[in-house]
């Protein structure tokens, strides 16, 4: 079944005077999808959301909702609703009138409005709160009312601008699960803006990691985590160990990369776009640490695993895991998260200063091509970029 497109941004640019907030951005959001825009502040994610909502005009480009071009339409003529960062509940109106606001504008009859308000407050688990004023609600409750006020209109797309930002950690976790449940229940496309990578990973079907007004990488949470294509994405979503090197060989599925200390490591071939100079990376939890026993000689890298030797700089026990800092022979520092499967003896063997070997599956290696631009386009030629 081909999924239809709910929101399409076609080469959208937004400039505030000299500052380019959103830079030639194109993206398709599919119907029923939980789509997140993730990035640090100033990356253009909120501006993009506000352009979809109609609160900012585009400098260039076109915005489609379904088939319709809505680029020039004011917010009240767009079939989208927004959950604002500070909720923006109307302080002079009761919860009932806040939630009913959109339906009243659409001239839905009163009995129908009453029925839908009650049903919507059930959905967000706020039944019986109709006559409260927003000032009498807690932050989490205001959040739910804001959600109800937007969803009751059955918009084509729901826009959420860091809606959990003002809540404390525990409530935020709870609301993440709630939001995902509600989204699944109502089947409306959600476009969610956040700077919290964990929040985005927990809820999203797809995430667009944004930086400087562009999409740095777009994909499922797993794709972004396991196969980041840029250093920025690798660093923004969790911890990563990066090593520079050059491609020295290639077979059907893997390329061999010689890193600075002379070790040859293998990485999936499809991740290398033909450039000779690359940076390869691996997530800390993919690494296994084994002590090198003196006098036993170098153990062969068995089973086609990548192997890299170093010494332990620091080992910190943090309950669920132990975090090691390992220094390679050429001075790189790599982070390792090892699950605490054994206790006692293993810890002693991996004390500070002990020589160790790090091993990992070659397919867990990801590749950041040095000559690839941040947005993954083919770069203009630079001196180091000869393919």
């Amino acid at each position, binding site marked *: 079944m081909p999924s239809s497109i709910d929101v399409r941004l076609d080469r959208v640019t937004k400039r505030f005077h000299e500052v380019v907030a959103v830079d030639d951005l194109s993206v398709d959001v599919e119907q029923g999808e939980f789509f997140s825009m993730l990035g640090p502040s100033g990356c253009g994610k909120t501006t993009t959301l506000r352009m979809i*909502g*109609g*609160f900012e005009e585009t400098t260039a480009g076109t915005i489609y909702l379904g088939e319709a071009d809505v680029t020039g339409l*004011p*917010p*009240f003529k767009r079939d*989208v*609703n*927004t959950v*604002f*960062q*500070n909720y*923006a*509940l*109307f*302080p*002079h109106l009761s919860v009932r009138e806040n939630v009913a*606001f*959109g339906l009243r*504008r*659409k001239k839905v009859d009163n009995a129908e409005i009453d029925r839908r308000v009650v049903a919507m407050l059930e959905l967000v688990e*706020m*039944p*019986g*709160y109709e*006559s*409260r*004023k927003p*000032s*009498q609600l807690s932050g989490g409750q205001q959040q739910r009312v804001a959600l109800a*006020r*937007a969803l009751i*209109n059955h918009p084509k797309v729901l826009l959420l601008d860091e809606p959990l930002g003002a809540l404390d950690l525990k409530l935020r976790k709870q609301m993440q699960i709630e939001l995902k449940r509600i989204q699944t229940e109502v089947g409306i496309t959600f476009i969610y803006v956040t700077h919290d990578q964990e929040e985005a990973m927990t809820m999203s079907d797809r995430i667009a990691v944004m930086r400087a007004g562009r999409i740095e990488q777009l994909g499922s949470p797993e794709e972004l985590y396991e196969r980041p294509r840029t250093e920025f994405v690798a660093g923004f979503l969790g911890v990563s160990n990066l090593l520079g090197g050059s491609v020295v060989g290639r077979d059907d599925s893997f390329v061999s990369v010689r890193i600075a200390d002379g070790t040859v490591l293998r990485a999936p071939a499809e991740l290398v776009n033909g450039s000779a100079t690359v940076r390869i990376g691996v997530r800390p939890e993919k690494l296994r640490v084994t002590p090198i026993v003196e006098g036993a000689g170098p153990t062969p890298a068995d089973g086609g695993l990548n192997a890299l030797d170093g010494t332990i700089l620091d080992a910190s026990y943090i309950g669920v895991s132990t975090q090691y800092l390992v220094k390679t022979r050429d001075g790189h520092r790599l982070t390792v998260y090892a699950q605490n499967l054994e206790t006692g003896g293993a810890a002693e063997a991996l004390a500070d200063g002990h020589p160790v070997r790090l091993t990992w599956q070659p397919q867990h290696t990801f590749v950041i091509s040095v000559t690839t631009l941040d947005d993954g386009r083919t770069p203009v030629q630079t001196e180091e970029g000869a393919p």
Partner: protein
Amino acid sequence: MMTAPPTAKRRRSLRARLGGLLLPGFTGLLLLFLFAPIAVMIAFSFNDPAGRQNITWQGFTLRNYVDLWGRSQITDPMVLSLVVATISTLVATTFGTMIGLALTRYAFRGRWLMNLLIFIPMTAPEIILGASLLTLWISLGVERGFLTILVSHIMFNISFVVVTIRARLVGFNMSLEEAGMDLYADGRTTFWKITFPLILPGIVSAALLAFALSIDDYVITLFSAGRTVTFPLWVFGVSRLGIPPEVNVLGTLIFVTALIFIGVQLWNARRADPSTRPAGPVTVVGR
């Protein structure tokens, strides 16, 4: 050493007692200073003076109140002042609100100039404004009277309204209007359903201020009045011959009216904002 603590204690308690008396005493004196003239004014509105001088207490009477309504030389200026104050308040509040909104919302050419011009009537001495207006009326050849008084009152009232409204709008959360638009309300509906109810307390304060400023303005009015007599002009006129008790009567009536207004506004504010209500048991709604 055994005697020192009781002495220190006694001294401290004496100081504490003096300190405890000082603040209430000072506050009481200040209140007396503020309200004694008003009390005297109210008391002497019931005086029954022998001649035109209403200075010494002669005896209690209600005649001053009863007689007031038949004497047009007293009631006419009062009615005129009320009419001028009402119309100038309505006009100034309407335009002042619009200007206040424009100045806080939009960046437009000449906004800084507008901001400056709005402040001039507030900061310039009244006598200068009055004299300038007089020059204006004469050079335009406008006959001075009701209309010129009204125009000058609207002029200075607008400034005060704009400043009051603007203060209210500074803390206004713009995303509330965006939320209105997001929920299918066009610009006009958003204004009447969201913005207006939220800034209404500010508009009401501005209107009350404008009314109060207009009804007792003397200096500017004098230059624009010609031979028309407003209430302050009449009071000043008769006071040169000795203040009759009617002045006290009208003063008392204005004071009582103001008290009623303030009372109603306080009551409204309490009703509208539950946070100012004294803490009480919170009812839990829900299941």
